[in-house]
């Protein structure tokens, strides 16, 4: 007969303020198998944990039930307590009487008391059947894949590489740098974005521990934590980068001009192009869709002009496979397609209604206007500029429900730049709230107000062209009346949304996409860079809208998690995973397609029964590196051959009986 100890936690007033914890402890003693029961104000604190250890020794306990908060919060804590007392840590069962009881029933203490006892009975019933579990180990490949070469991917790659591990950085564009390298100055210190990001780009390309694949995409991910096998598809650039010297002659002589995506269509580039002068690698690619040779069969000017003989029209796509132990997703964001949603702002048909990113290019010394703020329609300097915040953000009707977090600050920065660069300029900013939670952010906002920016609290209901002016109509909710501003240019702070193709990446690395399209972290507060898939981490805006300081902080956090992982020689696996009783497995294979982690496969075993000839049979087999213990196979298994350790059918039935019978 097991000897179970029950430990009831008050959690201060969270539990103790609603139910009578001493009474719960007294009632628990009568449950089958319980030999000791007590309560304490904070069971997770050091004295609380020590009291558990002492009780295990004094009362020769071999199973422990802690009635407290959610196991998501403190199961690990109490498992370690058991280990310190010399017990197998998996002989612990928790009863969640906080989230599942006192927090939600705080107005009905009597019913909460009864429910708490029911929850404790359930835990005790299961504890009676608990078996010791032992983690196994898997080897660790000491390399890391980083998907995405924006500032998040760059920072993660550099930090992991500096820690001494090999990094594979994959970027789908011809250059790394992402969105940040397009920006002009960055709030609140106004340092130039290129000056702080391009040195990091160079550091990536020269770091001995980093292998850089630009113009490449991750095409597939197999394996599991410590042992991923990644397929990378290198797109065809038609330029042999081992021969190319980056002289730029081809780009100068190419006869085809197309809209330049780096400058958001504000100017043109050639069909063979280096995206911008500080690109890394600083070597061109051919845009075959627009190249005269590829579209008409005639031209080849770039090949004739190239002294290095680097142009290769016959180049083929290459597929590379790399083995890594950890993966960091840093796929970033793009801007919400406001033109498709906001008819009242003209559906994008007014050239002088632009996004904040267009403004960054217009005000950037390396941009299409050489840093002069000129409006796109007629290249004149706008004297009155209206900024509209929350376009697509905080607008569930047309866009996204969430706040994009960076817009209040970059709009303040834009306003400051207009007032600084355009003498006598007038700036109006329509806003819902001004949110400035960051170091020196509020001060920057106040400075913009004292520069002369006029903040109008209200939404813009309409923008229309009137002659060469744009009329912006909105409400001033502080004055309580509608207002109209005749502007020369309107800048929309459009929402951040996750970058295109995120669903494919999410599927490959088995990470959930949340309701807003961002990648789901394992816990919003306590595990912000981890995911529910072992060995896969998140950095930057792929997890949610962020500004640069937060992105870099998160990237370094992901890098430190990865480094910690890669420093291990081998990895202990969670023992609470599926196991197959091959003796009763019929090999039906129903468990294979239901597994979301591709952890179950069929294999052939040779069965030896005394008195019979050996015979071959197909049975299910669980890969302990991949299995996350979700239990989907357990449900699908008709003969009951697959069980999840720590959640066996007997244990689950005992729990149900304890509550329902």
């Amino acid at each position, binding site marked *: 007969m097991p000897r179970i100890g029950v430990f009831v936690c008050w959690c201060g007033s969270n539990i103790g303020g609603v139910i009578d914890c001493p009474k719960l402890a007294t009632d628990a003693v009568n449950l089958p198998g319980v030999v000791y029961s007590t309560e304490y104000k904070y069971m997770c604190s050091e004295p609380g944990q020590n009291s558990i250890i002492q009780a295990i020794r004094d009362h020769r306990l071999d199973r422990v039930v802690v009635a407290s908060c959610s196991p998501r919060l403190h199961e690990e804590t109490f498992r370690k307590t058991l280990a310190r007392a010399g017990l197998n840590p998996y002989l612990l069962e928790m009863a969640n009487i906080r989230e599942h009881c006192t927090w939600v029933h705080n107005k009905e203490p009597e019913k909460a008391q009864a429910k708490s006892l029911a929850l404790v009975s359930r835990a005790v019933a299961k504890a009676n059947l608990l078996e010791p579990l032992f983690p196994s180990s898997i080897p660790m490949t000491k390399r890391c894949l980083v998907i995405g070469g924006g500032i998040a991917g760059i920072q993660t790659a550099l930090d992991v590489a500096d820690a001494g591990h090999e990094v594979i950085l994959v970027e789908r564009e011809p250059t790394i740098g992402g969105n940040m390298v397009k920006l002009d100055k960055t709030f609140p210190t106004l340092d130039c974005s290129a000056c702080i990001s391009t040195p990091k780009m160079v550091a990536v390309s020269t770091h001995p521990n980093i292998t850089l694949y630009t113009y490449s995409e991750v095409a597939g991910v197999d394996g599991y934590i410590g042992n991923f096998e990644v397929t990378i598809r290198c797109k065809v650039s038609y330029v042999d980068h081992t021969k190319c010297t980056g002289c730029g002659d081809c780009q100068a002589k190419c006869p085809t001009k197309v809209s330049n995506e780096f400058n958001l269509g504000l100017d043109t580039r050639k069909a063979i192009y280096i995206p911008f002068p500080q690109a890394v690698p600083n070597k061109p690619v051919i845009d075959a869709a627009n190249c005269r040779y590829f579209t008409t069969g005639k031209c080849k000017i770039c090949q004739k002009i190239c002294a290095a003989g680097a142009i290769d029209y016959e180049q083929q796509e290459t597929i590379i496979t790399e083995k890594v132990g950890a993966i960091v997703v840093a796929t970033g964001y793009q801007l919400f397609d406001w033109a498709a949603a*906001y*008819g*009242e702002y*003209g*559906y994008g*048909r007014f050239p002088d209604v632009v996004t904040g990113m267009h403004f960054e290019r217009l005000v950037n010394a390396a941009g299409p206007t050489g840093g002069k703020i000129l409006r796109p329609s007629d290249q004149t300097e706008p004297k009155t500029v209206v900024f509209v915040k929350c376009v697509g953000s905080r607008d569930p009707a047309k866009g996204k429900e969430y706040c994009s977090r960076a817009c209040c600050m970059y709009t303040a920065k834009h306003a400051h730049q207009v007032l600084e660069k355009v003498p006598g300029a007038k700036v109006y900013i329509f806003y819902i709230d001004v949110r400035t939670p960051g170091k020196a952010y509020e001060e920057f906002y106040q400075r913009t107000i004292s520069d002369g920016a006029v903040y109008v609290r209200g939404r813009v209901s*309409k923008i*229309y*062209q*009137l*002659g060469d002016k744009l*009329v912006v109509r909105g409400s001033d909710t502080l004055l309580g009346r509608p207002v109209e501003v005749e502007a020369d240019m309107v800048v929309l702070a459009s929402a951040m949304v996750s970058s295109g193709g995120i669903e494919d990446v999410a599927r490959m690395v088995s990470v959930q996409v949340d309701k807003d399209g961002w990648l789901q972290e394992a816990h919003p507060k306590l595990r912000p860079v981890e995911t529910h898939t072992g060995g896969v981490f998140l950095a930057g805006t792929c997890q949610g809208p962020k500004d640069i300081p937060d992105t870099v902080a998160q990237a370094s956090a992901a890098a430190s998690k990865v480094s910690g992982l890669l420093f291990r020689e081998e990895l202990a696996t969670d023992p609470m995973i599926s196991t197959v009783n091959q003796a009763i497995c019929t090999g039906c294979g129903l468990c294979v397609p239901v597994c979301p982690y591709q952890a179950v496969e069929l294999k052939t075993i040779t069965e030896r029964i005394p008195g019979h000839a050996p015979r071959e049979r197909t049975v299910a087999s669980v890969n302990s590196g991949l299995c996350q213990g979700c239990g989907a196979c357990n449900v699908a298994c008709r003969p009951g051959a697959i069980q999840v350790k720590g959640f066996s059918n007997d244990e689950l039935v005992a729990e149900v009986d304890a509550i329902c019978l």
Partner: protein
Amino acid sequence: MRYAYYPGCSLHATAREYDQSTREVCGALGIELVEIPDWGCCGATSAHSTSHLLSVALPARNLALAGSMGLDITVPCAACYQRLRYAQIELEQNEAVREKVARVTGTAYDSKVDVKSLLEVVVGLAPETLKSKIVRPLDALKAVCYYGCLLVRPPRVTGFDDPEDPQIMDNLLRTCGAGVLDWGYKTECCGASMGISNEEVTLKLVRDILRVAEKAGADCLVTACPLCQNNLDSRQTHVNRAFGASFEIPVLYFTQLIGLALGIEPGRLGFNSHFVPTDKILKLIT
């Protein structure tokens, strides 16, 4: 092609020229209009601002009359159209209202009748039908189309065009050869029935519309709503007096312009019954 024709009160009174031109154009295009016998008021603003039941029951009676003719309804007036469509949707989706309305009108709703604005019906013709009959293209004309607040709104009720930047009338007039200008006031309010109770408000709204149309370079405004037309046309002299302006922009129904393009004689299209003289438009199209 036959339709039950619901003219509404305006087309028998202030908007006679809309009625005339509608009948002429439909005749020329092979759309047969059968006026609903004993049709009644659509309820207009008065009904829906006082009684929800009345605002559904009045159009419901007209829907029932059309139902007994076995024809779909076409409505030239934007407000009537919107009220009939709204009632149709309400009767389909709200069982309680459907039962009440059946009780007060004495006729159960049957969902066979569809309600279409006249614009939809004309646009719904095979593209060649209109094009092949144009004898006087409107090449020299620069027009802005004014949809007003009701014709394409709310989109859940009307739903046949974009509520922010409608195009249906623009494209129709382009087919007739007119130079249709883009402008920012397609769906602004003209003041509607406020013209009667608070003219000051309406005058300002009308002034704004005329100002933006003039700035866009329009020879005329084109509408599909009798109340819009009335406000914009009949109040121009008031606006000029009140604001010291000198607007003289003819305000036409789209049917009048299509009629011109089809070669119908202007007198039969009601060009002589406008407050702002229409001669300069007629001079452009000859």
